Each structure stands twice: as structure tokens, then as C-alpha cells.
């Protein structure tokens, strides 16, 4: 095997490792949840981003999207903002400032605990939220992030 091919194989392996680590991080710190009755089983990260940032306000099956967030200081929120929204919690807050005052939308409700988020998602068929991995899920289901 010449050097060129070896280098390409190494780069591919490194990339795969990076993807595996990123996926583990996504799966490790939080889980995205929806109502148990929702037909949704998996979502692309970009789709979750659009639901959480109010860019898409309706599910494909017709229900209005009701996004719910964790409180500003929750470590789960920091991980979710970084890994799914691609911004820090501060930057997301800045985004919502413009949306609020231009009359184009309001941020998701912020709830203080994983249990409160689960309760909200359980009560609302169109809800989407996230909780720390390992939190027992009752009346809601975790979806797969593609």
C-alpha cells in the first residue's frame, strides 16, 4: 500500500471515529422526546433545529409544533444547543430577541426540570422537547436523531 492510499484510509478512519464520537455525545447527554401518540419515529438534526427555532411550526401530520425548552442554566440545554442548534445558549437567546421584537415569534416555554418537560410533552400531542439521558420516560417517547 503506498503512502497516498494509507493517508486516505487514515483520514477516513479518523472521520468515522469523529462521527462515532459525535453520535455518542448526541446520544449520551440528552434524548429528544415527543408525545407517545406522535407518528414521528426519527428526525434529522436540521428538522429538530427548525422545530425548536420556530422555523417550522407544523408537523407533517398536521399538528402544530409545541417546542419546549429546559431552563437557561441546565447542562442538558447547553449540550442540546451546541449539538443540535449549533449555537451556544446565549446565541440562541440573541436569535429569539430579534424574533420577539420583530413580531415573528416567541421562544419555546422554558421548564425547570426534566420531569416538567416530560409532563408537558405527555399532555401535548404536538410537543417536542429534550431531557437528560437516563430520565425515565412516561407517556412520551424518545426519537432517533439521524
Amino acid at each position, binding site marked *: 500500500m503506498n503512502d497516498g492510499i494509507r493517508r486516505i484510509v487514515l483520514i477516513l478512519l479518523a472521520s468515522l471515529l469523529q462521527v462515532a464520537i459525535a453520535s455518542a455525545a448526541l446520544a449520551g447527554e440528552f434524548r429528544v422526546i415527543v408525545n407517545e401518540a*406522535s407518528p414521528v419515529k426519527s428526525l434529522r438534526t436540521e428538522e429538530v433545529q427548525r422545530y425548536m427555532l420556530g422555523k417550522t411550526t407544523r408537523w407533517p401530520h*398536521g*399538528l*402544530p409544533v409545541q417546542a419546549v425548552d429546559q431552563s437557561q442554566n441546565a447542562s442538558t440545554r447547553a449540550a442540546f444547543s451546541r449539538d443540535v442548534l449549533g449555537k451556544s445558549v446565549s446565541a440562541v437567546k440573541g436569535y429569539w430577541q430579534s424574533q420577539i*421584537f420583530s*413580531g415573528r415569534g416567541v421562544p419555546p416555554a422554558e421548564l425547570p426540570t426534566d420531569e416538567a418537560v416530560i409532563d408537558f410533552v405527555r399532555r401535548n400531542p404536538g410537543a417536542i422537547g429534550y431531557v437528560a439521558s437516563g430520565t425515565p420516560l412516561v407517556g412520551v417517547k424518545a426519537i432517533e436523531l439521524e
Partner: protein
Amino acid sequence: MSKRNRAIAGAWKAISIGLIVGVLSPSLAWSQATANAEGAGSNVSAGSTENWWDRLIPPTSMANDAARVDLHGYGSWAWADTDGNPYLGGTADSAFDVITGGLLVSAKAFDRLAINAQLSADTREGDSDISLERAFAEWTFADWLKLRGGRLPHPIGIYSEVLNVGTTRPFFDLPQGVYGPTGTTTLSYDGAGLTGSIIFHDWELIYDAYAGKAIDKFAAPYVVDITGNIPGPGSVVVTDAHDTFGGRLQILPPIEGLTVGVSAYRAEIDSSPGLRVERIVYGAQFEFARENYSLRAEYYKQEADEYKTNADNAYVMGTIRPLALLPLGESATFFDRIELSALWTLYKIRRVDPVPPGFPLPVRTPKQLKNHREWAVGLNYWFTPTFVARAEYHRIYDNVFAHEGSTLLAKLGPPRDLDNQTQLVKVGLDFSF
């Protein structure tokens, strides 16, 4: 105030009170929400058959927690001082009371219906002004089609919809050529509009189209130059821009933080009695805003038909959080909130034709009353994204905006003692919630 204006003002007051009372009645919204909860549940079935019009206007549904009322607000306090001409609330005697603020109530009474009402207050140099900045309803047919009606923010450029909210920008004030009293952007408009966003792969396109009557503001030199009307005391005149229609198109490519767009509108403003001047404004915006740095630029051309007057407005504005870019570890949370900002802006009025016969002014308006050039630097400390302390320095050349209000009119002949350079220092706080 004429009878007609009184009637319009009364109507707006009634609408705003109605909206505020309406949106502040959570019990009403709540009962609506619970009444519709079952309807929401029935929509879950994935295999239901739909016509195309069902997709456009599906039945209004409401889940248990969908009804909500939000109260938001913003405020600004600044100490401002200039070395001569008044500018942006600063005077040669120092002004400690440059205070602006506003309250916004937004409500989602039904799944597809959003209502917004915003009051704003402005106190500068002892003059206070409270106004109903906007009061509108928005019906969402789909994410790509929303209908808005009422008193609406004018969608042009980057900042026109958040004109007074300091925490959305790097300086206390927006560049005056584009967002100041020049009629390039207006305060708001009474009418109707369509808006929506279309997502195609990783690209997003946001559009706005609107028509109505805009509420306009001009600095004295511009009013005089373009209309021939000499305004009363004060340096800014608020008037109506009739038959306004226009649109904005913004494209967000799949590059984090990048937005480019174009805007244009046409309106008619009252000139001399019985005479209306057609105005056309068009231009482009560029924005590349990342978490620790940003660059924004806009250019607009404004053309007024009657006296062949046109104006160029442009600015470039950048920010950087230099310490956030360094690997400072845990201490970064303190230092990465420091932001440096810089601004360069230009505004230039040109009259193509000679002054028409009977024009009630000196033949030639001094050049310094047609130009505005400015650069500024600022230091911001963002305690949170909604609370910032600022200190900034501005250097202004010429006098379109930096002048002494009505006393300026006496100086429309030879410039005499009108100093064409102004320095402004402004220190204070911006917050929102």
C-alpha cells in the same frame, strides 16, 4: 390635529386597548385552548386524506398548552455629550436623560392566530413621546404563507423591524442614513402584508410583501430640501407616506450566520399643499453574524420624483469579541463578553434639477446640510444577551442630523457659524426581557 387625524388616532387607541385587553385575558385563551384540545388529538392519525386546500387551511387546532401570552420589553438609558451640535440625544451641555423603552404583548389565542401590540416611549432633551408602534394580527396558513394586518413593522433591511431595541445591535443607535429620519425606512405602516419562509434543502428564503400607509420621519434639512415645507419647532417631522407598497427578499444559504437580501418600496409623501412626491427606495443588505464576530453592510438608494432629488445611504458595521477567540479556559465566561464594535456610514442628498420656480428657499442649500459622514467605535460588555453596558465614540462630519433643530432653519443660507464637525460620546445600558 385635524378632525380626520383625531378620528384615526382614536381608532388606533380603541384597537390597541382592545388588543391589550384581549391578549391579557388568559382565561379567555385558556378556555379556547381546552375547548379545542380534543380536536388536536384527532389530527394525529397519519393516514387521513387531505385536499390541497386542507393543507393550506387545515382546521384550527389547539393543544392544551398552546395558548400563551408573552410580555416583553426593552429599555435604554444613556449619558450623551457632544462638543457642539446636538446629535443622537447628546448636547454640548451633556444629556443624562436619553431614555427609550417599550412594552410588547404577544399572544397566541388560537393555533394559527398571533396578535402583537407594542408601545414605545422616547425621552430626549426633555421631550417625551409615547406611541403605539405596532398592533397587528397574523394568520398562519402555512410556514410559507402568513397574512398580517394592522399597524406593522416595515420590513426593509436588517434592522427596520427592531428599530428601537438596543440589545439586537452593536451600538445604542442604528446608522442614521438608513434607519434615521431620512424616509429610507419608516417607523411602521398601517396596512396588510404577506410573509413566509420557504426551505429548500439547506437554503431558506424569507419573503415579505406589503401595502398600506407608512408612518414616516424626516430630519429638518431633508424635509426642506425635498418638499420645500419649513417644519415647525423641532428637528424631526413625522408624516404619512401614502400608497406604500413594497417587499423584501432574504436568502439564508447553508453557511451559518450568512444572510443576503434586497428590499424595495414605493410611496407618496405630502409635499406642498395639494402636491404629492413619489418616493422610491431600493437597496441590498449583507449580514454575516457568528457568535464572536459579525459584519453587516447595507446600501439604499432613495429617489424622489418631484424635484429630482435622490439620496445614497450606506453603512458597514462590524463587531468582534477578541477574548472569546482565545483559548482562555474557564475564565473565558467573563472575558468573552467583551465586544468591540466599529461603524462607518454615509448619507448624501443630491438634487439633480435646479430649484423649481417659486421654491420657498434659498437657491442652494449648503452642502453640509446635504451630507452626513460618520465613523464610530464602541466597547460593549454583554452581561447577558439581554443586558449590555456600552461606551462609544462617534465622529460626525456635516450637519444633516447633527444640528440645532428649528434654529438651523435660520442658517439655511450661508452656513455661517454652523460647525460641520461633531464629536459624540455616549455611555449607558441597553436591556430587554
